[in-house]
């Protein structure tokens, strides 16, 4: 009996040793740095932008081919209905992602200590050391360091590589043939823009289309604020301007009903007079394609430059262009605000950091990156790679260099009412019943209360 027990113990110990040895072997195989004999799975997560996803899949296939034994698993979810944040948060919580697409924060996402506010979202992850500092990676030398620092920089490090940049706020498409049909030129000032729209309306044409259900009218509102704030200041002054605004809001010397926002509200209302009446029910997912197929109506679409290629694919014969909204009466102020977009970040918990860095080196190599820029319609963030030219990018090609980084929101405490971040445009005329003046006053009161002023 005793011998039998002993034999069973020996057998159990041997089995355990074998299991440990097997798992160690598996770990060694899985944790290698990408040699041809290793078998590794690199998990990448990216929000669903059809052209970007298609291109990423092509890069993944090319990378797998160049790295035998490496398999890439691409996770994706649309940005609508919180699907993307939900996927991202679950991947982070499970520590099961090696390369994660991020909407970059910016310098104002890290409020100074005296505000008592904590960074949130991506900024919180960076500030708490959850992403690898890529500043010294060789591939970072391909990029403009200032814009990379603005997008993913923190305390001297750069915690992601920004590979896409679009004109977001201030963005507008126009149908060249409709303007030509009514003898109109592309407007350069707000007055010209309003006159054009009045002419078009008198001919039974509804001038503007927008994805109002998803709040894309904010592109016009925030764009006008951008243009009024930046005026003709150099692009390099942008951080200083936004920081001064954030501090002015925080100290109570500026608020949503200050003169600049009153002026912005007047300009915004002039544009909104010509909007499609039912636009507040149009979702972003279909707005660009719906606009594209109606070649005789809606000469203008308020939308970001990321939809340019989608429009071109939907209606290949449509003769359209892209420009910054002429939100003010000074043509030199009506520049485009550039929004840093998809930035790749490597979580510090990733077991395949070296491989992820190799992937980024591969992805950002000029040959691959030029294709990425062409596929997505993004502005190039690599100085050596020119922004791809398409039929609709003529204005962009000529004027993007005069653009500046998109504005940031004033600092607001957690739990502050939505109104504290500015008017709720879906509730404001013409989509809602509230006047813009009342909405600004409401926002000013909400912001003051949130800060205890």
């Amino acid at each position: 009996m005793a011998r039998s027990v002993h034999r069973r113990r020996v057998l159990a110990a041997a089995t355990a040793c074998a299991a440990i040895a097997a798992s160690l072997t598996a770990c060694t195989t899985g944790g290698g740095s990408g040699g041809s004999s290793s078998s590794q799975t690199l998990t990448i997560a990216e929000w669903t932008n059809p052209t970007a996803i298609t291109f990423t899949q092509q890069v993944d296939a090319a990378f797998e081919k160049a790295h035998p034994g490496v398999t890439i698993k691409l996770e994706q979810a649309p940005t609508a209905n919180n699907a993307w944040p939900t996927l991202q948060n679950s991947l982070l919580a499970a520590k099961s992602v090696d390369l994660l697409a991020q909407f970059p924060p910016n310098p104002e996402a890290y409020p100074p200590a005296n505000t008592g506010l904590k960074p949130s979202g991506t900024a919180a992850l960076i500030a708490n050391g959850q992403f690898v500092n890529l500043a010294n990676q060789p591939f970072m030398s391909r990029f403009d360091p200032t814009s990379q620092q603005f997008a993913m920089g923190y305390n001297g490090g750069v915690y992601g590589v920004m590979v896409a940049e679009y004109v977001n706020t201030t963005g507008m498409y126009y149908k060249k043939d409709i303007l030509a049909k009514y003898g109109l030129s592309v407007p350069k000032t707000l007055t010209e823009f309003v006159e054009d729209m009045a002419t078009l309306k008198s001919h039974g044409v509804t001038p503007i289309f927008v994805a109002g259900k998803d709040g894309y009218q904010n592109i016009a509102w925030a764009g006008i604020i951008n243009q009024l704030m930046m005026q003709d200041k150099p692009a390099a002054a942008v951080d200083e301007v936004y920081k001064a605004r954030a501090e002015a809001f925080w100290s109570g010397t500026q608020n949503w009903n200050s003169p600049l926002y009153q002026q912005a509200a007047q300009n915004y209302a002039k544009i909104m007079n010509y909007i499609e009446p039912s636009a507040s029910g149009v979702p972003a997912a279909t707005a660009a394609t719906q606009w594209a197929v109606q070649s005789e109506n809606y000469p203008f679409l308020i939308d970001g430059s990321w939809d340019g290629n989608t429009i071109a694919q939907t209606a290949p014969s449509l003769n359209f262009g892209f420009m910054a909204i002429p939100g003010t009466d000074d043509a030199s102020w009506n520049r485009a605000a550039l929004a840093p977009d998809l930035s790749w970040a490597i979580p510090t918990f990733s077991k395949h950091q070296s491989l992820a860095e190799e992937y980024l080196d591969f992805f950002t190599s000029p040959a691959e990156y030029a294709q990425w820029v062409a596929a997505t319609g993004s502005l190039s963030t690599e100085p050596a790679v020119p922004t791809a030219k398409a039929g609709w990018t003529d204005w962009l090609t000529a004027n993007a260099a005069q653009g500046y980084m998109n504005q940031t929101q004033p600092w607001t405490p957690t739990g502050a009412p939505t109104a504290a971040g500015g008017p709720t445009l879906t509730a404001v005329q013409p989509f809602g019943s509230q006047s813009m003046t009342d909405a600004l006053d409401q926002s000013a009161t909400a912001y003051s209360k949130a800060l205890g002023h």
Partner: protein
Amino acid sequence: MNQCPFGTGRTRRWIPWASIAVPTIGWLVFGLYPSLATIYYSFTQYSGLPGTPLDFCGLCNYRNAFQGSYSDFSAAIETTVKYAGGVAVLQIGLGLGLALLLKNRRRGFGLYRALIFMPQIFSVTVVGILFSMILDPQAGPAEKGWTAVLGSANSFLGSSTWALPLCILINVWMFTGYTMLVYIAGLRRIPQDVYEAASLDGAGRWRTFRSITWPLLAPATTVNVFLTVVGCLGEYALILVLTDGQFGTQTIGFYMFNAAFGQNPSLGYGSMLAMAQFALTLMLGGGLLWGLRRREVAL
């Protein structure tokens, strides 16, 4: 002589304990622990993102929620109460009406009952997408019908006037079949001789309904009202798909989900909202249950 179902000897002692251990552990891990964590998180500024600090802040989230008349919190409570009230009234009324029409075992009635119940088996996402397409102001059939009849445009789910009523109606469309079935079960339990006695006493249809059917349906009404209201107090999925909480449709459930798991998540603030939702459900659900059960006893 009764046999012990757990055998004899040692097995008799440990099998009952093992049987309750599994669900108990499940409840501790998936019920009690998350509930206690939610209570604790509601006193922190925790983002919920890995590696970020908990930042205990006492009652800061509760103070933020009650800080002013423009608070999203009070607006969300108001929307939730309107939503739950609207759904409850319409769904109970419609469910009862349909039950009265279709309670009998006649040819074809089974098919009607099945058709009315069918939306219940669709997922919320399917229903949401279906109605988003129907109500699309550019390409949807509803807009074409509206324009043809009234000659004006309507953005439906993008309208601050129409969005909440439409969400209420879509919810009612989905779940009226269930309410109807509960009422049919209740109606079939009312003895026929009570109706015969009422008929002999000369009671008309309305008098019979008011004095016999409605009072004797009290238990079914309790079940329907309680389940409908409690379900609506936690509603977020249908709102998420239909309007993304815009145009005056942000319920407390949606607000909580968005705050805790949105683009810039704040699990601390979201947990406070979950506590508020729990309190609201306890007050309204508990109050309704108490009132409706008292009505049953009184009858």
